[in-house]
């Protein structure tokens, strides 16, 4: 019974230590954020000199997280794809479309001509191979069967 005030004091000390710990982490994260956003200014390289892989490394460190985040089909070159094809628009614009290699090439050319897409350089072939392989057209005929029907009882 005499020990009780001491127990409370101990607990308070523990809680205080914990709070100080949590606050330290928060403060550190704020500093890291400020540093990353305001002090690590991008270099002055031109579009042609940019290495897209270095950009992706900042978005996600592992192959799995790139796939999770973008919903893109898996591929050894996924980081090049994500860096070049999701900077302006969402990956959903890629994954909902289907086209031949030639069709994808014409979309890239349209984006370069009208939408500020940069010169893809040596990555263009890598990107086109990826798109043609994973997002090729499937023949749908002139009218497909109704799909994804959720059956339910219609009330009388």
């Amino acid at each position, binding site marked *: 019974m005499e020990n009780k005030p001491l127990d409370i004091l101990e607990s308070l000390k523990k809680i205080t230590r914990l709070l100080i710990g949590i606050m330290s982490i*928060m403060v550190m*994260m*704020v500093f*890291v*954020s400020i540093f*990353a*956003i305001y002090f*690590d200014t*991008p*270099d*002055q*390289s*031109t*579009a042609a000199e*940019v290495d897209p892989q270095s*950009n*992706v490394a*900042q*978005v*996600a460190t592992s192959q799995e997280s790139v796939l*999770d*985040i973008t919903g893109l089909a898996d591929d050894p070159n996924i980081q090049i794809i994500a860096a070049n094809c999701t*900077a*302006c*628009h*969402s990956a*959903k*614009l890629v994954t*909902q*479309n*289907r*086209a*031949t290699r030639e*069709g994808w090439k014409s*979309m890239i050319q*349209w984006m370069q001509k*009208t*939408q*500020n*897409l*940069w010169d893809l350089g040596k990555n263009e072939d890598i990107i086109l191979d990826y798109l043609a392989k994973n997002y090729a*057209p499937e*023949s*749908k*005929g*002139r*009218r*497909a069967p*109704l799909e994804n*029907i*959720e*059956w*339910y*009882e*219609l009330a*009388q």
Partner: protein
Amino acid sequence: MSNKRRAFLKKTTVAGLAMAWGMPVVFSKHLPSGMSLLADIKQDPTLPNGKHKDLSLLNDRPWNIETPPHLLDDPITPKDRIFLRNNGLVPEEIDIDAWTLTIEGESASQTKNYTLDQLKSRFQQYTYQLTLECGGNGRSEFNPPAKGNQWTTGAVYSAEWTGVRLRDVLNEVGVKNDAVYIGYYGKDTHLSGDVNKTVISRGVPMSKAFEDETLIAFQLNGEDIPLMHGYPLRLIAGGWPASASGKWLHKIVVRSKVHDGPKMTGDAYRVPCEPVPPGSKVAEEDMCIIESMPVKSLITYPKTGAMVKKGQTFEVRGHAWAGDLEVKEMEVSIDFGATWQKCALEPPKNRLAWQHWKAGISLTDSGYYEIWARAMDENGIMQPMVVPGWNPKGYLNNACHRIAVKVS
């Protein structure tokens, strides 16, 4: 360009990291509008505020969201069920006191600015129910596939717009005899972040601009236009591809030639002037601008997948529209188009509003059925049962709508 992109990726990472740690997103205010945090995308990409949870997300940067047909059952579409097709990013800061509409251009007699208050007080206000459908609604069915957002049936709605007539404003400013076209400019931002780049600037010929129902609107269904749909001012040209109805409107140009802003030229909102075989390459000069949308209809009740008892009578209903024209007749089929049954069809509330139709159905044998619906416009043109003429960008699919029904 590359620097901007790099800066964005970096910011997103920090924000995403902080979120993943269960921390507040310290620099979330630096994220461009309409942009989701990585942590959000990873889970279930959320719809923008104010949208019904069962709308389907096609794209979140820019926003492209469509409405399942059973959610379009209301005679006048409520704002939470209106599809969303943005080409760029939603403007961030809107100061309605400072907002002006400028009328200018080589075929305007003068350049004139109006504040919102001036527009509302100087001109008579009108309210019309107007049907707006995306030119690419139904694109997902084209074969070979067409590039762009893969809309199924849900990029259409009919809501009430309140505003002033474009004609009244143009008449006060003065239009020269050589005027051919008007074009709009809005305040949205290009996806690339380039603030000097116009996202989209389309328009209509003078004949459409001078119609009674072509409005400079400031209200949707009796309230301020929602931000995503063009607050505080939007040009509305019902019956034409919805892209002709410019959001966040701040400038209208009167042109002595067909307007040539972004997405007026090339193959945007254009179809081959004459029909082509599927998969053809079509030269730009052989592509013609889409004007009035074609005749079309939707079954909004019941929802597809209904199971009914043999002989159970149930109502089938929906809406029909035909661009600039009126729908004259509406039919449904229960046998894959072999026979058709006439529906009761209401006249439109006003010109360019969709029309409501209904029919009683009773299926006497058990099995799998599809109910098909087709409308006919006042010129006798009907919806096709298969996907209509292929075109490179997948516009104008008005094939009859189908729902599945099982009888036991």
